[in-house]
């Protein structure tokens, strides 16, 4: 076998191996999307009920609550970035990081200090590589988020929010995550979590609906105290689930195109290998013919 032919055969083999891996990853991602989607829809009643309740309280009370009032001057804003733990998901992480960078630039241009809270190893790696500071990180379970983590994140955000700016507290909290639109589309999204904008968000109660007059137990203020952290947690948990589902969808798409690319490569190299084999044969024939000619003309 000629050297050229051997090189092509090696390349085909390597592309085939890669294809096997990417195909397997595609199938794994596909099976995980269904599960992640099911979890997303299972948690929907909770966030819907909470959003409704928060809207009710916000609509039917004029209480000034720290979580709902706009601070006069925003000194520091927190940006929470939801990335994934693993790569191989196309532009999934770079999209969300780019969106976060744009948001940070905007906030800085408004004279605000920006601090970061990171979820997922990829965001942590991005910041560590650039030697940039961040407040806190949560890694290791972005593929399969659990509610306790959301609670932990919510707790540290709310306590940072309650602390005065002079002691490192923040006045605004933004979250940046990939929203799962469909299997093919995942869009990075920025939502201001605090101060609350109940008007915005995914789980919106109908605008035309008239909320009844509520009685509160114990007091409006206490109900808000109890409700708003829960609302924050549910929004964060929702963002985590959305991000996880988006990650699986992005992985599936990326791995599918990788398998398709491997197919094309295998095809191209097979053609080249055939070509090389053919020319090798042609050369051998012409050598034999030439040799025979030389022998016969000698006499």
């Amino acid at each position: 076998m000629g050297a050229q032919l051997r090189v092509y055969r090696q390349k085909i083999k390597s592309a085939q191996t890669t294809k096997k891996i990417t195909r397997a990853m595609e199938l794994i991602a596909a099976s995980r999307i269904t599960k992640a989607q099911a979890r997303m829809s299972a948690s929907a009643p909770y966030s819907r009920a909470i959003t409704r309740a928060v809207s009710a309280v916000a609509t039917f009370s004029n209480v000034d609550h720290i979580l709902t009032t706009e601070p006069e001057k925003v000194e520091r804003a927190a940006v929470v970035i939801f990335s994934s733990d693993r790569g191989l998901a196309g532009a999934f992480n770079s999209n969300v990081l780019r969106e976060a960078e744009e948001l940070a630039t905007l906030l800085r241009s408004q004279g605000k200090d920006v601090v970061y809270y990171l979820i997922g190893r990829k965001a942590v790696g991005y910041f560590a590589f650039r030697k940039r500071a961040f407040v806190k990180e949560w890694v290791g379970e972005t593929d399969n988020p659990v509610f306790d983590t959301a609670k932990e994140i919510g707790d540290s955000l709310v306590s940072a929010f309650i602390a005065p700016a002079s002691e490192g507290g923040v006045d605004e909290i933004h979250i940046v995550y990939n929203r799962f639109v469909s299997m093919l589309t995942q869009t990075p999204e920025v939502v201001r979590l605090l101060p609350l904008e109940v008007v915005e968000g995914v789980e919106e109660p109908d605008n035309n609906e008239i909320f009844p007059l509520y009685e509160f137990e114990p007091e409006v203020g206490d109900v808000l105290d109890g409700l708003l952290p829960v609302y924050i947690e549910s929004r964060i948990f929702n963002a985590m689930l959305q991000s996880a589902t988006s990650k699986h969808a992005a992985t599936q798409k990326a791995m599918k195109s990788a398998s398709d690319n491997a197919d094309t490569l295998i095809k191209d190299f097979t053609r080249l290998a055939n070509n090389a084999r053919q020319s090798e044969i042609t050369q051998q024939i012409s050598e034999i013919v030439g040799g025979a000619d030389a022998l016969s003309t000698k006499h």
Partner: protein
Amino acid sequence: MAELNVSLVSADREVWSGGASMVVARTTEGEIGLLPGHEPMLAILGAGEVRITLAGGGSVKANAEEGFLSVEHDTVTIVARHATLV
């Protein structure tokens, strides 16, 4: 008689939903019983048992912790971080 529409949801799923004639739950102020026609209310749940008396007799019991309870138009929503049927 009108019926209460009850749904009990925890953070990651809907635990139970259906019609009921009475709901008894524990709020931070104490135990509260809800019948059809109750005025709209929003209350913080204390840790404890939620008892749902079904319309056709029989009852469902659940443990609900860290959450709240809302009532409006005969719709009772019990939202708890952790909720399990007993």
